[in-house]
């Protein structure tokens, strides 16, 4: 337990010292909200039953930030530590892999949720976003989405050979995931074939789940989304734990 606390506390301090990490986890998403808010104000979206543009887009940006964390921040952090020999040095101590992973996940999760809090605060205070869903549901949906994409990040880190390959694989995954998520262009205007493919996109389900929770949709109408995000979490976490490696 002492090892876990010490490691988590250290990783938190190191994350705050890293300008890139602070920018991507805490500053980027609120900045996107500001840009989006200035462009659209709170005009109602015609396609979405009169939900305000900000209430429509805010949860999507949140899910998108989780995806970026999972596709880039986590694998690059883990792989850099593996490539430099940081993990090897830790391996030579009694530290268990599970303790290391738990401390690292806790810090990444806290960082992701802090970024989410800022994002929502900017949307609500600055641009009149008004969640109609229960705070508990919103938090639960956010937690689930964050955990699923963090797990994806650790599974990529476990499987990919180097931090360079992360950039390639991350981009290859990020572009279609984003395009087919409903966070950029509405899927409703796309051909059926594209929508069939999009059904396998975890980011689409995370976006729909967060949007639903934010806008007060009943849980019963989000069963598929919850199942899809949980499935991503379970599959990715299994890969991450089974394939964890201290060294290159």
């Amino acid at each position, binding site marked *: 337990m002492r090892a876990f606390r*010490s*490691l988590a506390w250290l990783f938190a301090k190191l994350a705050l010292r890293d300008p890139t990490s602070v920018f991507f986890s805490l500053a980027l998403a609120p900045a996107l909200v500001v840009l989006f808010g200035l462009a659209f104000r709170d005009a109602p979206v015609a396609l979405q039953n009169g939900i305000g543009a900000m209430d429509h887009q805010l949860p999507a940006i949140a899910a998108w930030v989780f995806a970026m964390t999972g596709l880039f921040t986590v694998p690059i952090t883990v792989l850099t530590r593996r490539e430099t*020999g940081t993990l090897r*040095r830790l391996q030579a101590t009694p530290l268990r892999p599970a303790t290391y992973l738990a401390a690292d996940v806790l810090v990444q999760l806290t960082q992701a949720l802090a970024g989410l809090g800022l994002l929502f605060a900017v949307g609500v205070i600055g641009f009149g976003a008004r969640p109609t869903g229960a705070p508990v549901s919103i938090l639960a949906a956010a937690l689930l989405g964050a955990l699923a994409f963090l797990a994806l990040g650790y599974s990529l880190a476990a499987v990919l050979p180097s931090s360079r390959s992360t950039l390639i694989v991350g981009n290859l995954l990020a572009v279609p995931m984003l395009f087919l998520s409903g966070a950029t262009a509405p899927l409703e205007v796309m051909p059926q074939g594209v929508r069939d493919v999009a059904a396998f996109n975890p980011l689409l389900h995370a976006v729909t789940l967060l949007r639903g929770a934010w806008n007060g949709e009943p849980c019963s109408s989000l069963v598929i989304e919850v199942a899809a995000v949980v499935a991503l979490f379970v599959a990715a976490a299994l890969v991450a734990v089974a394939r964890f490696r201290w060294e290159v």
Partner: protein
Amino acid sequence: MRSAASVERLSKRYGSVRAVEDVSFTIETGEVFGIVGPNGAGKTTILECIEGLRRPDEGRVRVLGLDPWCERYALRERIGVQLQTAALPERIRVGEAVTLFADLYRRRGDPEAALRRVGLADRRGAAVAHLSGGQRQRLFIALALVHEPEVVFLDELTTGLDPQGRRDAWDLVRDIRERGATVVLTTHFMEEAERLCDRVAIFDLGRVVALDTVGRLIASLGEERRVAFTHIGALDDAAVRALPGVVRVERLGDRVVVSVRGAGTAGRVTTALEETGVAFDDLRVERPTLEDVFLARTGARLPGADAPEA
């Protein structure tokens, strides 16, 4: 005295490459044990098998009575490790690193004392990335010592250090030994092994080619001495080789090294050289070193030595 570690018939392959082949030795409690040899001799592999970082293909290893692979967590509580290639998380500071490592062990040592011991107490707040090579290596020693381990493993401790850094590191090794811990170190500097180690295992191509105390290894070469000098003008190698007691003559450009055997031979050779009328300079008589043992046991020759053996 109970031994600190034992290795029996250990072998390790990487694909088709045999890194370590049928190696056996014992490390006694409280000694400084050197694993020496050229790069690629299998030194790091054998060390990592003893530390429990690698699983041997064959053979039996015991450290402090434990199997380093199957009982690795129990063992790691009691050993301290400095790796040849290691790093710390980016942006970490000296004090943070040593505190973190203290916290990873059940027996939490004193991080401050560890920093004082390696002379880094005043660099506590410095970023690890800003340390000099020598300071960085001392920090890694502090990380290996913070929990007061019973056996300390040091892999290529002084590679890349300047002379002062190397001397500081040597002092630390002697300090560890004086406090009663067993030290196992690898090095490709024979001088370092000669100065630090009680016993030395010389490795070549994955096998032990010699194992004994430094003194006995050197004595095993017999009463060999080397007469080294730089000559000015022509010198007939064959005439030198023909002098009584001369074992071999080697040349490094103008520098000639005459290996001789037998009491008083060095003096007689020097006199004989003077009588030939060849002017020479920078004459030195050297006793053999661990390097000579290494060269004799591995059949290797000094780089650039182009003279055939007598």
